[in-house]
């Protein structure tokens, strides 16, 4: 995404860069906002040569307002007037605040507009942007903030991190069209690029493609030749009366041979196209799938899951359709049509013109009704969409509907929608049933006129009978595929868009990959965080300046309110993301220098959302170690307190779980996940809310299992239920993006800080309950 827009000459002049000052970011602010000029009683000001204007927000779009950030200043330019400027060294903070449907850029400063130093910082709103520009503005302002921080820390703007945005534009800069989720616009992209992608797509299939193209040429040739033979037969054999049985035999033989030949070839070609399309889309699908797995989570998380799924299934499907339905016909049809037209013109330009005239009429009619046809069918599609949505809604919300006893109301609502849809559909079909025959009739009229004139010509001898028949056949060739041809541009464009969307993923470089010289290590479990900062979006830090050290075999509990970055810390430890700044050392080696696979094979993970793959319980436990023996699997399941419930299922360890399989409860799933982690005998253990879905009793049992598991292994555990963490050697409390407290349970309690507050709060809540189950299984009232 572009963060440095070009200013006009007069704007640059107004900006008045001083020596050594350079423009770093410049982004448009598309909603009118005039910052106040000091005295807050005066609500109007003179922003330049123009008249007085009210300060604050105005209901107006701006097209030439920019927020410019130099290495020294932040300047708002409206046209070529400066409406606000501040030296970045005077800023405490600059922010882009998300509002509702828009964003505002604010500056916190100690210096007021008359350059007096205020006692405490205050916020100034300097510009406003719509959702169209908000992402861009956020990035640029994040860049400005980096300069502000750098100026504060070491007085040097040059040391600030240069912010870039990997996000795609939503509109093409050149043509203004919406970008279909691609890095470059498929319309403006050079033909060569598309051709290159297409070629690389066809890479391994060149021979097949050539063969198909050749067969298409032969088929068109045969089709074109038949009317010629026909004409010769009529003119030389039939009309002259000199024809013999032999001539007839030859004619029928040749025609028949051509026809059969063409049909056979056509069948072969269609089969080949379908095979080619399937093979291509399959190989693309495989490539995409592999690539998506390799790509770092950061790439995947930036996109909606549905979108990537679409790229794998729908876009590759489009490519297949293209090869099946378009590619196989495109060239031969075009060729046939051109040749037909040429031959028709040579036979009779007048007749050609006349029959084409009706084509023009039909097209005009189509054009007039196009909008209507398109609208009514699009509306039908919307209605059917709505209908299926509401079915889905009601079925998935069935329990709620039933408990509130609103079945009748829902049924009525649904049947209303169904009636609506049926009405629309029948109206549309009626329209089409009337409209289409009219079109066919009109197209046919062209032929009648041609026959009329051609027949006259034949009667007066200006034309032979054979020529007339030939003309008729060719006009059939010409008009037949016309309807199909009108869809061609759309189909090609769809293919190009899909191609782009696929190649966007395929061309993406994974952010996390093995460096040259990265090595496999045997994990001992010594961890060190050195000045680690990280954010999923560069403009929103989640963790800032994290420093701590973990000895091998230590169990670390991570504590903090939700959204403070506990899971993020674990993502960094697992190297699903790399830190933006600083480094994580594992046994004295930078985590980035450890082979990813070697790292992951030695980590055992139990996550909050326990995901089980479709397959048997056995498959799921064996997921990380497919070679485990049955005894090992049972051992692990026993350790995870899962053996008992597994035995009670009808198929035992062979019970199929997953989307359409046996329904495990949340706690059961979690226990299977724990068994999975135990089986792998990991060196490093990560428990992210591993026991959150369990009742107190099974939590205790699993806790025992986990204690066995964690002894001697470096363990990172996140839990909201603090009792889960009582075995931890040390606790790290994360608050406001960084480490707030660190120490053992007792140390932190004595400190009476955040941890203390959390513990007492939880005890209070537990006290609210009349009775809790104690760890030894006996129920007893709490104090």
């Amino acid at each position, binding site marked *: 995404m572009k963060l440095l827009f070009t200013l006009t000459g007069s704007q640059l002049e107004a900006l008045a860069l001083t020596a050594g000052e350079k423009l770093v970011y410049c982004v448009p602010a598309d*909603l009118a*906002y005039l*910052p*106040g000029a*000091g005295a*807050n009683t005066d609500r109007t000001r003179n922003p330049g040569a123009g008249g007085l204007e009210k*300060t*604050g*927000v105005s*209901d*107006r*779009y701006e097209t030439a307002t920019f927020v410019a950030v130099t290495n020294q200043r932040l300047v708002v330019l409206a046209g070529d007037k400066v409406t606000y400027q501040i030296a970045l060294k005077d800023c405490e903070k600059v922010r882009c605040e998300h*509002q*509702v*449907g*828009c964003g*505002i850029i*604010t*500056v916190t400063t100690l210096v*007021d*507009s008359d350059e007096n130093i205020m006692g*405490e910082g*205050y*916020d*100034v*709103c300097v510009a*406003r942007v*719509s*959702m*169209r520009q*908000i992402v861009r503005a956020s990035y640029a302002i994040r860049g400005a903030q980096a300069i502000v921080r750098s100026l504060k820390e070491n007085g040097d703007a040059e040391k600030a991190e240069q912010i870039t945005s990997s996000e795609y534009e*939503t*509109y093409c800069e050149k043509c*203004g*069209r*919406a970008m*279909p989720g691609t890095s470059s616009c498929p319309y403006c992209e050079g033909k060569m690029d598309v051709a290159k992608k297409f070629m690389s797509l066809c890479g391994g299939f060149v021979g097949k493609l050539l063969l198909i193209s050749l067969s298409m040429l032969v088929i068109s040739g045969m089709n074109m030749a038949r009317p010629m033979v026909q004409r010769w037969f009529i003119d030389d054999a039939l009309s002259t009366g000199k024809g013999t049985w032999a001539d007839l035999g030859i004619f029928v033989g040749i025609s028949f041979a051509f026809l059969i030949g063409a049909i056979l070839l056509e069948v072969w070609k269609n089969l080949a196209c379908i095979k080619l399309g399937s093979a291509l889309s399959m190989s693309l699908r495989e490539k995409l799938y592999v690539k998506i797995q390799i790509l770092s989570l950061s790439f995947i998380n930036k996109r909606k899951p549905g979108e990537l799924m679409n790229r794998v299934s729908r876009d590759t499907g489009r490519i297949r359709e293209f090869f099946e339905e378009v590619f196989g016909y495109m060239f031969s049809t075009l060729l046939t049509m051109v040749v037909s037209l040429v031959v028709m013109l040579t036979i009779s330009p007048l007749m050609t013109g006349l029959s084409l005239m009706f084509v023009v009429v039909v097209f005009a009619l189509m054009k007039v009704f196009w909008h209507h046809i*398109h*609208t009514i069918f*699009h*509306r039908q599609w*919307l209605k059917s*969409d*709505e209908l299926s*949505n509401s079915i889905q809604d009601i079925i998935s919300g069935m329990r709620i509907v039933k408990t509130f006893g609103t079945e009748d109301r829902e049924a009525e609502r649904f049947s209303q929608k169904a009636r609506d849809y049926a009405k629309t559909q029948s109206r549309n079909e009626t329209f089409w049933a009337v409209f289409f025959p009219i079109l066919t009739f009109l197209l046919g009229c062209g032929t009648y006129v041609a026959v009329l004139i051609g027949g006259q010509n034949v009667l007066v001898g200006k034309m032979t009978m054979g020529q007339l028949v030939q003309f008729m056949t060719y006009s059939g060739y010409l008009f037949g595929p016309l309807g199909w041809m009108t869809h061609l541009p*759309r189909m090609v*464009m*769809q293919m190009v868009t899909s191609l782009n969307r696929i190649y966007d993923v395929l061309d993406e470089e994974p952010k996390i990959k093995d460096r040259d010289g990265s090595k496999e290590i045997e994990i001992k479990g010594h961890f060190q965080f050195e000045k680690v900062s990280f954010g999923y979006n560069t403009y929103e830090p989640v963790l800032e300046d994290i420093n701590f050290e973990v000895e091998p075999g230590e169990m670390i509990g991570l504590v903090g309110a939700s959204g403070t970055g506990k899971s993020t810390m674990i993502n960094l430890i697992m190297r699903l993301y790399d830190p933006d700044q600083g480094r994580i050392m594992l046994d004295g080696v930078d985590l980035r220098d450890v082979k990813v696979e070697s790292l992951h094979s030695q980590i055992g993970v139990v996550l909050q959302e326990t995901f089980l793959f479709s397959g048997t319980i056995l498959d799921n436990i064996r997921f990380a170690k497919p070679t485990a023996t049955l005894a090992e699997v049972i051992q692990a399941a026993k350790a995870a307190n899962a053996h008992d419930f597994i035995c009670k299922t009808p198929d035992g360890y062979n019970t199929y779980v997953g989307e359409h399989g046996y329904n495990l409860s949340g706690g059961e799933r979690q226990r299977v996940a724990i068994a999975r982690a135990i089986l792998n005998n990991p060196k490093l253990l990560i428990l992210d809310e591993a026991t959150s879905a369990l009742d107190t009793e099974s939590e205790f049992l699993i806790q025992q299992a986990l204690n066995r598991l964690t002894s001697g292994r470096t363990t990172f555990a996140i839990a909201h239920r603090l*009792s889960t963490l*009582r075995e931890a050697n040390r606790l790290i409390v994360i608050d406001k993006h960084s480490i707030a407290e660190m120490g053992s*349970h007792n140390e932190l*309690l004595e400190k009476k800080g955040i941890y203390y507050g959390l*513990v*007492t*709060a939880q*005890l*209070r809540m537990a006290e609210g309950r009349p009775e809790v189950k104690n*760890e030894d299984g006996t129920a007893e009232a*709490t*104090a």
Partner: protein
Amino acid sequence: MMSEDMDLLDLNLDDEFNEEELKKESEELLEMRFLTKENATFARTEGGFVSLKFGDKEYKRIGVYLTFPLTNPEEFISIREADEKAKEIGMIENLNNLPKDQQEMIRDQIRLRYFMPVIKKIMEIKEEYGYAYWHVETSFGACRFTTHMSGDVVVSLSDSRLLVKDIDGNRYEIPDFYALGVQEKKKLDLFI
């Protein structure tokens, strides 16, 4: 483990203050506090925001959150602290009950925070390859934007009131569908 739990319990029994604090906090969350002209004074700040004096507390900048932005924009306005947590200070039950100048201040803050242009006239809706390109006249001036072609682009808030959402997430309001011209309605056909 038992003993640890026990001493945790002992520990908090000693400490009544913290419990009070927590209780107070949770009660504050439940309480309906209304800001009226008697107990609250709003003032413009130098930076273009609004400050609040409420009882003995002063807030340098406040956030104005509409609780029913689409149906009752001037009622039950939640006034919140301006930081990330945005804790509620109180609610304005009805904006019209505040002094005139303060009403205007709050309205200006609403205009700053909420952006939803009203479509006054539809010049053109052109469809091309799965996107609709709109050219409209809005309360903010002429505007071109793009929407997908799916069914959730135009949402009806009531029989006649529509919301249009573009690909960036901007929302545009059509206050009365029936007040549009015949041609304009026809252009909207694709979505309704």
